[in-house]
């Protein structure tokens, strides 16, 4: 019959149970994929790109793994999306959010199989999520007032975050780096002012935080290599041939002599510009665009350090740290704000020469130089450090802190269980399922560490019946231990985001009862 086809040729439609199965399976497959990277003993994944060169990335970061996957299952895409958002918003917990959403769906699948309507499950999940959040809010510790304690909180968070990454060997060192860097930001979440420079060579422990600012550029030839008490002009201007910008202007001459004249005028113009710049009374000039040989020479003659082709971020950061403004016109030298720093010098890291600005006016920005054996290590180190910096900067703003090591999950699970027992109706089944899904996170952490998860979780559960219990899983010693003593902390904001986005995603997938896939767009035939 003609009516069987209301869709286009290659479009497909899946209904009811089949649709639900397809999305459950897809979502759980994704969750299982990243599950093994969870926790301090989680394993890494190798990703090989399909692009030219088949570049290899080794990573433990959930968001990075999921971003690189080519996924066809629509439900799986939802999970990839939440992990990406988690990364943008809080920076860490990208794996946990996917694992939790996957576990929620796994539990939901069982409920659906026992003929409970998805809407009932959703209602239960929502109540459970709300209850779990409240349980967390009650248990948070806020040490904002006490600077000393707050710093130790930050250190703990940084250590906990880093312990699941490649940097875990030197977590003490990096935790300190990250905390120092974030403390300098003074509450701003703008991580742009923390610059991370990667230089292969040396070992991870050689990485350091530089108070000043390091620019990965070379100093022009014949110019001073070291300037004390520098006055810096940061600029964004063309220093090649300064074109006439009026539209349609072009040079049309009838003899070689005229060409030479105009060339001379051009040179004169450039010289004038350089003189104007020099007229600012500076001894260092940093430009975003190229500086050609001719002006460079002029600068060298004037004894000015000229740095060309600093990228956009570099310029902005430099302007930020030195307190100068980014200039593009040079007619009013008296009112342009110049940047200052005590010392500019060329330094060597490994084999590369870099320019270091130290003793800058504004202490906000800083540079972290990462050293490591290979590019893969450095890339992964950067990602890990980025996670830590994100979490820390968010914590500075929202200073509520929780214990780690599966402790928050146990607290939430306990509360949700209690709520389920009080709730009449089928919703309570969904709540129980929710608490089981929460427990899956400590279980996975224990499993990944090769521990007897069932034993540990049951011990933990018994411990948590006591009021004010602070026990969690200590993966290092492989037993249940006091998290407060071991200083394992997590930021409240991260946990809350994990909880809420995972529930939201699970809810969204549960509500679907039909999947309609359109025919893939035909690519233009170029053959």
């Amino acid at each position, binding site marked *: 019959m003609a009516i069987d086809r209301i869709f286009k040729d290659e479009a497909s439609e899946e209904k009811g149970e089949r649709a639900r199965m397809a999305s459950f399976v897809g979502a759980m497959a994704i969750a299982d994929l990243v599950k093994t990277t969870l926790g301090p003993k989680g394993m890494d994944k190798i990703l090989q790109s399909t692009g030219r060169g088949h570049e290899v990335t080794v990573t433990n970061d959930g968001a990075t793994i999921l971003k690189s996957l080519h996924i066809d299952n629509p439900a799986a895409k939802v999970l990839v999306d939440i992990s990406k*958002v988690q990364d943008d918003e*809080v*920076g860490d917990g990208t794996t946990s959010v996917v694992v939790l959403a996957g576990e929620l769906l796994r539990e939901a699948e069982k409920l659906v199989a026992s003929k409970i309507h998805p809407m009932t499950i959703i209602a239960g999940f929502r109540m459970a999520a709300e209850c779990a959040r409240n349980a967390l809010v009650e248990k948070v510790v806020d040490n904002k007032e006490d600077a000393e304690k707050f710093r130790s909180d930050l250190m703990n968070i940084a250590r906990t975050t880093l312990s699941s990454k490649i940097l875990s060997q030197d977590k003490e060192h990096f935790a300190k780096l990250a905390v120092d860097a974030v403390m300098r930001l003074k509450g701003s979440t703008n991580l742009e002012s923390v610059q991370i420079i990667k230089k292969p060579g040396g070992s991870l422990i050689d990485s350091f935080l530089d108070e000043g600012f390091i620019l990965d550029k070379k100093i022009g030839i014949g110019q001073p290599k070291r300037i004390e008490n520098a006055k810096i002009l940061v600029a964004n201007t063309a220093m090649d041939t300064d074109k*006439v910008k009026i539209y349609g202007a072009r040079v049309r001459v009838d003899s070689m002599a005229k060409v030479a004249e*105009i060339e001379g005028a051009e040179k004169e113009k450039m010289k004038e510009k350089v003189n104007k710049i020099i007229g600012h009374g500076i001894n260092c000039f940093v430009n975003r665009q190229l500086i050609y040989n001719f002006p460079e020479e002029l600068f060298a003659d004037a004894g000015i350090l000229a740095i060309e082709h600093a990228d956009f971020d570099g310029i902005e950061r430099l302007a930020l740290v030195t307190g100068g403004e*980014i200039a*593009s016109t040079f007619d009013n030298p008296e009112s342009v704000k110049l940047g200052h720093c005590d010392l500019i010098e060329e330094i060597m890291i490994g084999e590369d020469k870099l320019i270091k600005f130290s003793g800058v006016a504004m202490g906000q920005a800083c540079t972290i130089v990462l050293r490591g054996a290979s590019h893969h290590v450095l890339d992964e180190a950067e990602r890990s450090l980025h996670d830590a910096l994100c979490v820390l900067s968010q914590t500075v703003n929202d200073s509520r802190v929780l214990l780690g090591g599966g402790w928050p999950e146990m607290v939430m699970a306990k509360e949700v269980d209690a709520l389920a027992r009080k709730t009449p109706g089928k919703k309570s089944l969904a709540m129980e399922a929710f608490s089981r899904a929460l427990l899956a996170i400590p279980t996975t952490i224990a499993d990944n560490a090769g521990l007897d998860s069932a034993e540990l979780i049951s011990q933990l559960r018994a411990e948590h019946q006591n009021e004010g219990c602070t026990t969690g899983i200590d993966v290092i010693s492989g037993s249940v231990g006091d998290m407060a003593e071991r200083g394992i902390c997590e930021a409240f904001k991260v946990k809350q985001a994990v909880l809420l986005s995972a529930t939201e995603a699970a809810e969204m997938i549960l509500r679907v009862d039909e999947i309609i896939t359109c025919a893939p767009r035909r690519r233009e035939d170029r053959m």
Partner: protein
Amino acid sequence: MALAFDDYGRPYIILKEQESKNRLRGLDAQKANISAGKSVARILRTSLGPKGMDKMLQSPDGDVIISNDGATILEQMDVDNQIAKLMVELSRSQDYEIGDGTTGVVVLAGSLLEQAERLLERGIHPIRIAEGYEMASRIAVENLERIANKFEFGETILEPLIQTCMTTLSSKIVNRCKRSLAEIAVKAVLAVADLERKDVNLDLIKVEGKVGGKLEDTELIYGIVVDKDMSHPQMPKQIEDAKIAILTCPFEPPKPKTKHKVDIDTVEKFQTLRKQEQKYFDDMVQQCKDVGATLVICQWGFDDEANHLLMHRNLPAVRWVGGVELELIAIATGGRIVPRFQELTPEKLGKAGIVREKAFGTTKDRMLYIEHCANSRAVTIFIRGGNKMIIEETKRSIHDALCVARNLIRNNSIVYGGGSAEISCSIAVEAAADRYPGVEQYAIRAFGDALESIPMALAENSGLQPIETLSAVKSQQIKDNNPHFGIDCNDVGTNDMREQNVFETLIGKQQQILLATQVVKMILKIDDVISPSEY
């Protein structure tokens, strides 16, 4: 089929290449059309009501959309069948006209077609069915008017409006915070509404979304939010009592439209040109400064030099602002859009109490808030949510809610929801049917049955026994002569929709019935489908 032959015994060719074309005629054509229409309606049926399920749609480019909104689902469905396309159009026109009830209209049309099929089998002529439907729809619309209630609202009495918006939102994924979203929608509509003329220009409400945060963080901003940042990183991030120059000319050297060339052949010319150019930039900035602007918003880009000059003169600026946003800013701040620097005058500047840049999350996303504007007639609803799909779906839901609120301002009649209006109409139509002599009587009765499909689908989706619930409610309506009984979808314990505060707009419902009847009539009148063969 009798073939006509010409003098040489060849048949006349009426349709070109008739053999290669598919042709369906008579009853077969009608049946095929009906079943195509029905299968579209079947897809949407499960999305109806507060417990309706969502559909996941994968677009040709692989993007995933999760939606509960009938119009969106159908639009994304990539339908090939002609009749199915008609249904898509149907839902779209409901969306344009009313903005809500896009699922209901398709479900209703589907069940009208289903009833028609049965009548066709009995041998009733399609035109008679169509006429019967037409009569019945008139009865139903009249009945709706009879049972409709008017309610008064004003600047202070928002409750009824909010309740109606909540009814709309409760079927969407955002129903977790439907109360706050409904409030936002109502406040937004009232802020831009012209209560005198009873009209609302929804263009004045900008719906902007940003991934991150949670749904509860969604807020209404009396002003404009622009997804842009200051052109120079060192410009001030906050400006109080801003005077805004809204420009559509770039801070760049002029580009006359006529083709021209400026030939440089002497050194003098070169130098004058250069001076000219520098002066030009200087003039542009100076002109803005002279009129007293403290913020420049420009549709085009800035030259580096101009950018620095602006920064230098302490004149913050925003570049690359889209045309629509520019207009909104102009409306909100009471400024004029100025196409040329020469035409800048102090009166043409817009005014805003505060303009600030706000950063989000760990990435360097920044947005510009323009608030406390001179004319608060333009507002922005700023949606936050866990992921892109939620935001998109929230945008659609908010759009529905805004439309509902607008419809109420236009016409403040409401009917009660939860299928109660449909049941009441069905009773009225069936009572009227008996008085019609002729074959149409059957069609009218069928129309009444078809109306019941909406409460039936509601009950089904809510996990109730559909037939049992429907018959109970129906008898209750007749017994108490009270048209407010509907399906208790949320398990509240009462099925008086007045108590549950479930309202829908009168015009929305009327439009649903009229549009659905029209499309069904059209489909019924088709008796020949000629489609070209596959090529």
